C-alpha cells in the first residue's frame, strides 16, 4: 500500500474553499433565521384550536420529516423552474433548506411550548395578559430556552446537510470540493480538507449559539442553571 498525499496542490486553491465555506455559512445563517420564524409560527399553528390550521402544520411537518432532503431540494428546484420562475441556485438552496429545517424546528419548539406548565399560563391569564402577550412573554422565551440545545444541534446538522445543495450547483463548500478534486485528481486530500473545514464551521456555529444564548437568556447567564 502506498499512500501518497499531496495537500499542496489542494491548498493552493484556498480562495475557492474560503468562498465555499462562506456560502455554506450564509446558507446556514439564512435557513436558521427563517427556520426559527417558521418553527415558532408552525408550533403555534400545531397547537391551534383551529383544526384546519393545526392539520396543515401537521402535514407540513410530516411531509418534510418523511422525505429526503435531496428530493425536497429537487422539488423546489424543478418546481420553480416548471412554473417558469428563475432563481439562482443559491436562492433555491436557501429556500429548500429553510423549508426543511422549519419543519424540524416546528416540532422542537412545539415540544418546548408543551413543556410550559398550565399554571404558568393561568397565572398570566389571571394578570389579564392577552393571548399574544402570554405567548410572547410567558410561553415562547422559556420554551425556547428549554429546547435551545436541541434547536442549535438541529441548525448545525442543517449546515452539514447543506452540502447536498451541491447537487443543484449551489457553490457551497462541497460543490467547491467536487470541482477541485475533478480538476486536480486529488479527491482524498480534497475531502479530508473539506471535512476539516466543516468541523471548523460546526465549532464556529456552536460557539456562536453559545454566545447568543448568553445574550438572549439573562437568567442562564446569571445563574448558569438550566430552566
Amino acid at each position: 500500500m502506498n499512500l501518497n498525499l499531496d495537500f499542496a496542490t489542494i491548498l493552493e486553491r484556498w480562495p475557492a474553499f474560503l468562498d465555499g465555506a462562506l456560502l455554506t455559512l450564509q446558507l446556514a445563517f439564512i435557513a436558521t433565521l427563517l427556520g426559527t420564524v417558521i418553527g415558532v409560527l408552525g408550533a403555534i399553528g400545531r397547537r391551534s384550536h383551529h383544526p384546519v390550521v393545526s392539520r396543515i402544520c401537521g402535514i407540513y411537518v410530516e411531509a418534510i420529516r418523511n422525505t429526503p432532503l435531496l428530493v425536497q431540494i429537487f422539488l423546489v428546484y424543478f418546481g420553480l423552474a416548471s412554473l417558469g420562475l428563475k432563481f439562482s441556485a443559491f436562492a433555491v438552496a436557501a429556500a429548500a433548506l429553510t423549508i426543511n429545517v422549519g419543519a424540524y424546528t416546528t416540532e422542537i419548539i412545539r415540544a418546548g411550548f408543551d413543556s410550559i406548565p398550565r399554571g404558568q399560563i393561568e397565572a398570566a391569564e389571571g394578570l389579564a395578559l392577552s393571548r399574544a402577550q402570554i405567548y410572547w412573554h410567558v410561553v415562547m422565551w422559556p420554551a425556547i430556552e428549554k429546547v435551545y440545545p436541541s434547536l442549535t444541534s438541529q441548525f448545525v446538522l442543517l449546515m452539514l446537510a447543506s452540502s447536498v445543495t451541491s447537487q443543484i450547483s449551489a457553490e457551497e463548500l462541497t460543490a467547491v470540493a467536487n470541482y477541485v478534486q475533478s480538476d486536480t485528481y486529488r479527491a482524498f486530500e480534497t475531502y479530508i480538507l473539506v471535512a476539516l473545514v466543516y468541523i471548523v464551521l460546526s465549532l464556529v456555529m456552536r460557539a456562536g449559539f453559545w454566545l447568543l444564548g448568553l445574550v438572549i437568556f439573562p437568567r442562564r447567564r446569571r445563574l448558569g442553571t438550566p430552566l
Partner: protein
Amino acid sequence: MHQTLNATPQSPVVSLKNVHKSFGPLKVLDGVSFAVDRGEVLVLIGRSGSGKSTALRCIDRFEKIDSGEIVVCDHRVSDPKLDLRALRQDVGIVFQSYNLFPHLTIEENITLAPCSVKGVSKAQAKEQARQVLAQVGLEDKLHQYPEQLSGGQQQRAAIARSLAMQPKVMLFDEVTSALDPELTGEVLKVIEALAADGMTMVMVTHEMGFARGIANRVVFMHRGKVHETGPAAILTSPATPELAQFVGTGL
C-alpha cells in the same frame, strides 16, 4: 390610581347565585350562592372535592359555570360576552403553586402585567414593584430570580405581583398548602396585613386557626353545596354535624 366604586356602595364585590357546575357526570357545584362585600374576607373551607376551589376559580372565570349567575365588580362573569381581561384586571388571583415566571426576575414578574396590560411606564412600574415588594417584606429580592427564593418568599412575591395590578378583590387558592409551617406563617402574615388594609378577599384554605382569625365570613362547602355559613365563630361552635366533624378532624 382612582378607585372606581361599584354602582351602588351596597352591592357586593363578588356574588354567586345558584351556581351549578359539572365536570362530565360529576356535579361539583350544586346551587352555590354567597356574596362578598367590600372590605370583607370570605373563607371557603371544606373537604377535598367539596367544590371550594372550583367555586373560587369560577369567580375569575377559570371555570365556566353551567347555570346560575356570578357578578364580580359589576362584571357579569356568567355572561358569554364578558370582557375577560377587564374582569381579570379587577381580580387578583394567587395559586397554590406560586406560578412565578421562572425566566424573569422578581421585578420583571411584577412589572410585566402593569406595563403590557395597563400601559404603565417602565419607570412607574418599577417604582410600584418596589412598593408592593416592601408590602410583602421582599424589597431586597427585586433583582433575584424565583428559583433563588424560598417557597414562602416565592408565594409572597406572587402576591406582590397580583397587588401591582391594583385589584379590587383578591382570590387565594390554598396558597400555603405547599409550604411548611414556618413559611406558611410568613405568607399568612402578609395576607393578614392586606385584610387589615381593607382588601376584599376570597380564600380557600385548610389553615383553620388562620381562618378563625381573619374571616368575616366562613362558607363551609360539602358535596357541592354551601352547607353552613356564618361568622368565624361557626368554626368553634358549628351548627351542623358535618362541619363539626370537619373542624374536629381539621384541628
